[in-house]
């Protein structure tokens, strides 16, 4: 059995491709960087796709808006329709949402005209007494879901992950739409407090996201738009020292032991291991 091949899709301005590749390799996946200068059809040869973070096309118009119109996204939509896993991290999530892959056609409103109509958007952060870009380690609670990237995790489990963005607020013109998606199991990770209670207010909900959504997926669960950065939390010892809870205890114990266990998997690896496990059943 050959390892599944993951395309790391890079538009100009994307800047998290190296650490994303490292995290995927750590999970045993084979990766190849596919730059924007390659023909879109090259994507057909891969088993899964990751769109890393950054500032594709300089966030012109809106974060992710230009990349969403790239022919590569048509190819990705076709592969997603065929069931291939697609993960967008931060700017990659913005691209998937702008392209309509998330929440996807499975959730057409009655009367919605096409998949191109943007029903959910990643809007500018809403934060009291500050504007713009914001970075912080936050808690993400795993929800009951069919999402390929989280379904192996126990619902209610908490993952500490860093966020770093200016436009990360899942929002919709129609009130309650994001909450309805969450209700339908399409918000696999939601911002929480260290004790597991959902975080509604800043800073634990770092951007004012509706329904505390940190991520949204399509109905089938194979396309995930994830605002936090799991690739930056690949190692246990690098979990921010501001983080407590079970992960904090694990980190402090490993650091105090001084036996190298702090180089073990960090919370972000759960997402990449899930992708590897998906292929253990499929490839």
């Amino acid at each position: 059995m050959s390892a599944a091949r993951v395309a790391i899709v890079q538009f100009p301005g994307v800047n998290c491709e190296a650490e994303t590749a490292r995290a995927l390799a750590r999970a045993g996946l084979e990766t190849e960087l596919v730059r924007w200068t390659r023909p879109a059809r090259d994507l057909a040869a891969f088993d899964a796709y990751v769109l890393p973070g950054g500032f594709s096309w300089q966030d012109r118009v809106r974060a992710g808006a230009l990349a969403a119109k790239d022919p590569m996204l048509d190819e990705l939509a076709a592969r997603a329709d065929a069931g291939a896993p697609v993960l967008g991290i931060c700017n990659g999530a913005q691209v998937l949402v702008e392209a309509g892959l998330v929440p996807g056609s499975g959730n057409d409103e009655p009367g919605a005209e096409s998949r191109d109509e943007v029903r959910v958007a990643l809007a500018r952060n809403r934060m009291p007494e500050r504007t713009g870009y914001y970075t912080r380690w936050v808690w993400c609670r795993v929800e009951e879901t069919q999402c390929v990237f989280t379904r192996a995790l126990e619902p209610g489990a908490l993952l500490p992950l860093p966020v770093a963005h200016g436009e990360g607020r899942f929002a919709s013109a129609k009130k309650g739409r994001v909450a309805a998606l969450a209700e339908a199991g399409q918000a696999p990770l939601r911002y929480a407090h260290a004790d597991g209670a959902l975080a509604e207010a800043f800073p634990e909900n770092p951007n004012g996201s509706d329904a505390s959504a940190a991520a949204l997926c399509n109905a089938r669960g194979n396309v995930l738009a994830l605002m936090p950065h799991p690739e930056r939390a690949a190692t246990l010892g690098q979990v921010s020292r501001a983080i407590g809870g079970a992960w904090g205890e694990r980190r402090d114990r490993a650091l105090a032991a001084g036996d190298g266990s702090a180089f073990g998997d960090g919370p972000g690896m759960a997402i990449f291991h899930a992708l590897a496990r998906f292929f253990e059943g499929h490839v």
Partner: protein
Amino acid sequence: MSASRAAAAGREAWTPADARDPAAVSARLRARGVVLEPDEVRLLTELLGRGPRWAEAVLFGILWSEHCSYKSTRHLLKRLPTQAPQVVIGPGEDAGVVALPAPCDDLVLVLGHESHNHPSQVLPVEGAATGVGGIVRDIVCMGAEVVGVLDALRFGDPRSGVHARDVVRGVVEGIAGYGNALGVPNLGGDAVFDAGFDTNCLVNAMAVGLAPADGVLRSRVPEGPGPWAFVLVGKPTDESGFGGAAFASGELGDPGGADPRGAVQLPDPFLKRVLNAATYEAFRVTRERQLACGFKDLGAGGIACATSELAAAGGCGAVITLESAHRVNRELSPEIILCAETQERYCWVVPESFADELCAIYERAFALGDVHPGAGARVIGRAVEEPRYTVTWHGETLVDCEVRAITAGRREEREAKPRTRRQPPRARRRAPDPRRALLTMLGGLHVGSRAYLYRHYDGDVQGRTWLRAGEGDASVLRLHAERPTGVAFAVGGNPFWCDGDPELGAAHAVAEAARNVAVTGARPWALTDCLNFGHPEDAEVMGDLEQTLAGLASAARALGGLAAVGQPLPFVSGNVSLYNQVGPHAIPPSPIVMCAGVIHDVTRALGIGLRGAGHVLVLVGEPRDGLEGSTYAREVLRERGGPPPPLDLEREARLEELAVAIAEGGWARAAHDVGDGGLAVALVEMMAGAADDATLGAELDLEPFEVEPAVSLYCERPAIVYEVPFERLARLSQAARDQGFVAWPIGTVSAQPQLRVRMPGGETLTWSRVELEQAREAGLRKLWNEEGV
């Protein structure tokens, strides 16, 4: 391009006969935006043996500016120690290079430090952004990938007016906008607010990179017959930043000058990110093929300085055909194309046979032209054996001189005299309320939390970050995903102390940066610095500068032992920024020092945040015996001026050695330098660094100090607070004794979220964690949110 334009650039700027009245020539040049002193007019005429062409006058005006030539300080900088066994390349190149220990001995660390003070005062967002952009290019042009940036900021008092406040917000926006988009983690730095910087803010940008030990590139035409081609890559040349070096070498608001905003460069981090990615690919290909190359970034003086210096450093000449350079699609005069400081450009020197392939990396694999209209790569010239530097424009000669004229260098003798210092005001005999005193200090801008500021910055991108800004006394990166080795970075430089005593203040700057690195467990490995001062024509400014160099040198000589026994801690890169002055008031003497450290195992890196109730708090260091130079004296007692606390460098070296031993031994759970605000503020910061769900506090007993409470709480002499599990206490105390220190148990970590201090005599003072946090967060939040004046 019209012939008349070319003719202007190629026409004689003055004749040898004119040069007999050099002052008149100098004045005439200045009116045209070219700055050459009268003696430089004479010197250039002699060097060329004829009257220079306009393009040559522009070029030498830039080469001999203070900004590029260091003519007032170069000879003085020799006083700093720059040699140690770990140094691969010391000062002189765009950035310094140091070796790393096994198992990372296949890598080298590249360190650079720049100032972008004048531009940031005039256009804060663009000025600060291009400051980051410039230092990043300095790292890349050594053949390295950039893995971190830091920034040391000195701002005016925001109460002084709206502009001071707008400078703060703009500078932070500029740094964030550039670094975040470039994808380089921000590893912290520092920020100080003082009215002394009202008219001249300081923006010092530092960057660090990693290169293969055998892959370091030099900024010179390689040895051998070549033939060598000069390849210009990046943004199309435009007129932006033309005259930037002259701008940085004079006083802001000089009434004779034009609007200086045109001299500030325009940042484009988006293009730079793609340009750097393409450059890293070019590094990979040239290494794989073992091609000799030279590489340099384009900064002050643009194409002219970069190409002439590449040739000069290679001991050969060059012929540049300027019309081959890609540029914006509008008419520009040739001297502007030659000397503009357009950002996001590099110059390669490669074998001619490889030039097309190199261009294809930039133009096809990375399609720079799609990213920015007109960006790309072009062959613009070739190296020649004869040491002559020639620039032509459609066949007409614009520059033609011996390379030795370019490297001649300039030296300006400046008078220096010690400054007469005001006597510090006598301490007032009154006893402020000790409880309110701490909240007053925390609520001020000097020791308040920096979180509001650094949460604008991406500290985690690239995935190497191990300790972030605010988590440790130094930020720590893990160098390699399969190795335990890390590097740590911290900055130092207290302008209040340097104002009180430049020599002692400068020594403290080195000690503070090195100590912060050591407290996390890393061995101080190398230093960079920037000397930010006023007018060099002012003898007292030069006196301050000479004393500063003495202080930096003595501290560096004392503190290198943890990298190599008996060796100094070497300065490997640096920068001098003069003319930070408007009218008679220079900024306070402001040496800013970065220390890089090496930690053998990042899992031993100590953070500042408290970890567990019941642990013992231990103080190690100099005695708490005075309030000289303290934040308490300035902000609570309202005393300004006066010298910093004393510094015993021999003991400082042993304290840092002890700090590394404690971290490497795993005897402590947290550690924090006692810095601004003294022991009380250090404990508050340790509480703030605790895990988010922990309800930890500190219990402190002042009885053993045997001094008045304000002194034990707020003295700023060097010391470190450790959080120690009881069972490790004996081991740590023994290690301290071995180095001649006493490890004072001063309290415990409690399960109550409060700071409780038992005063001598038994009274207790208590602050809740919530009230301490509210006070710490207030200052910067207000600065960003208040409107109007």
